[in-house]
């Protein structure tokens, strides 16, 4: 996860994109930064703006449009709960409600202890596992409300 020292590190990512690429390089660069730092700190965005000569307001416009970009630090474990059609009709909504209630999220997407972040995604393309969620890169298929606690607990110890 990122810290102030991590933010300074984006220079090596900037160097991979020529300033002449301008806006065309923006998405790739933002994706690289988010992959490395877990989110997009404003200091890094200012550096991106300077490098590609794009106003910060434009960068913000792009970030706010795409679901995958985050302006705030995320939890240690990112839960991706699938809300595609197959997951929906197999009871995904109940699983999602249970995750929210178990983690006591109250409308936030990251827990207070920063252990979990919850993302609702539209189809992970693994409909045969429906309802399905991912924690990090691990899939949890055929989810039930009863399984939620057991799985989340295993990340809490």
């Amino acid at each position, binding site marked *: 996860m990122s810290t102030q020292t991590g933010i300074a590190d984006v220079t090596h990512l900037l160097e991979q994109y020529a300033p002449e690429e301008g806006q065309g390089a923006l998405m790739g660069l933002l*994706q690289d930064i988010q992959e490395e730092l877990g989110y997009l700190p404003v200091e890094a965005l200012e550096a991106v703006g300077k490098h590609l000569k794009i106003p910060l307001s434009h960068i913000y416009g792009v970030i706010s449009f795409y*679901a995958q970009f985050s302006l705030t630090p995320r939890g240690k474990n990112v839960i991706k709960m699938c809300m595609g*059609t197959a997951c929906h009709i197999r009871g995904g909504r109940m699983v999602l409600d249970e995750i929210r*209630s178990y983690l006591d999220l109250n409308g936030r997407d990251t827990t207070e202890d920063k252990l979990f972040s919850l993302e609702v995604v539209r189809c992970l393309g*693994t*409909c045969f*596992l429906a309802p399905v969620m991912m924690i990090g890169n691990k899939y949890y*298929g055929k989810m039930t409300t009863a399984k939620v606690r057991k799985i989340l607990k295993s990340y809490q110890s």
Partner: protein
Amino acid sequence: MPKDRKIEELKRIDNPEDLEALREKLRRERDQDQVRIRICMTGCRAHGAEEILKAFQEEVAKRKLDTRIVSTGCHGFCAQAPVLVVDPYGIFYGGVSPEDVPEIISQTVEKGQPVERLLYTDPSSGKPIVQAGEVPFYKNQQKVVLRNCGQIDPTDMLQYIERDGYAALAKALTRMDGQSVIEEVIGSGLRGRGGAGFPTGRKWSFTRAASGEPKYMICNADEGDPGAFMDRAVLEGDPHTAIEGMIIAAYAIGASEGYVYVRAEYPIAVEHLKKAIADAEAAGLLGENILGSGFSFRVTIKKGSGAFVCGEETALIASIEGKRGMPRPRPPFPAQSGVWGKPTSINNVETLANVPPIILNGGKWYSGIGTEKSKGTKVFALAGKVNNTGLVEVPMGITLKEVVFAVGGGIPDGRSFKAVQTGGPSGGCIPDSMLDLPVDYESLAKVGAIMGSGGMIVADDRTCMVDIARFFMDFIQDESCGKCVPCRIGTKRMLEILVDICEGRGTVEDLQTLEDLAYSIKDTALCGLGQTAPNPVLTTLKYFKDEYLAHIEEGTCPAKVCKALIQYRIIPEACTGCGACLKVCPTQAITGEKKEVHFIHQEKCIKCGMCYSTCRFEAIEVN
């Protein structure tokens, strides 16, 4: 044959003759009798395929066997995951665990005998089936797009080359000009597999005829439709097919630059694509002076960032240019003014995967498959309340019934079929009275659904159609880019009405308002997303009006899904007092002494369904 080939060993192939010579050599060197274990290492990873692969590698090393283990892409039969096939016997195993590996080695690899308990059991006869090709799920399919998926290691380009890989490209470059490639594709009848079904060859001819340099060829791999995963399977399991199709398309339209716009939610697909592009470049099949022909084409991968609307071509172009992915009115069409204002052709992954076989076998061969207006095969992602969830490829014109029952194996848990939803949020719900409908572009459009990208979600009697309509409208609301009023505000109003109906506040007049809104949005929205967004509502209103009326007039949800209209209750006669439900209830709404009948206090119940899914005695009912 060497077990592992690295990219450094791939030498540049300078001309089509050398490519053919390499193919011959690969085929000659292939030991036909060698035992090969093909394990799905893409979708099945979610079911522990990696542990099985490791167990096989260890066991094969331990016993010093000359067995080849091939990590393949998707075999299609995802319901049986993890799956593998042992060749040359063609023996199919599903639901394998690492503990089964020593037995498979002793019985099948060493003796050629099947391990009976791991075979697929035919549900209709109850008999085990040995050969993959005999399993009903596979028997009714015809594979063109998925011809290599599950057969080859997608990270080994030579395996692709051995199976006619890049032969179509060589043929196009040496024996055809761009115009004749286009004519061949027009003759094949191939139509876009991404949704709208526009004739592919005609799209190319517009881009070819347009003025402006350079031209761009884009592969649309932003498979955003919930419930569709065929493009993911192709990119993961046979990425070279899509790339070869792309190079041929670029040659046809005269493009020198290309992009693959791929969903970031598909990490394995991105990884395999990157490897495939690097390998093809190293071999001179992509990049400068391809196969010594003088034709050059460069491809860059662009990752999406989670916006459904970016599947729409003008929005996709905006996204590639680093902007908010918002559509713009057409004309001008991308063929005239696409990415960076240059002529651009955008084709979907499945469309492009069809191109190499068409060039190789001729448009005439392809047009022999399918119906009069819908040619070839179509890949469907079967999911929802169906036994054989997975990827199926069938000829166009096959009936819905054949797909859902003959290939899909029918409905699980003894429930009954209610509807099939095709085309995702842009599509519609087709009722059981129309199960004999042939699956082709025209027939689906006629009943108010669309082919879309090929998601097919099966609904049973426990699926509420009003809830499905609400679900899709919620999806559209979330994904609407907000540029045009009908989509931004109109779908919001529709969603509010649907929520009201699901929560028991609907009125009969609401149904007329829904319909009026639906047609206004269809007529006035800017892009395909908005114009098709009302389809799920319109089809459910048309075919399942009684369910809407039950919610409105009787305050009940016949499928027992809508939370506001249901109650969980314990059946005293069936309750054993085991206490399982009491323990899992998150709101302590259940009380009862051990071994005595329990009780749900309705005022505390949040209808989470935990008790229902926990009870082993079917002692909880939903009213």
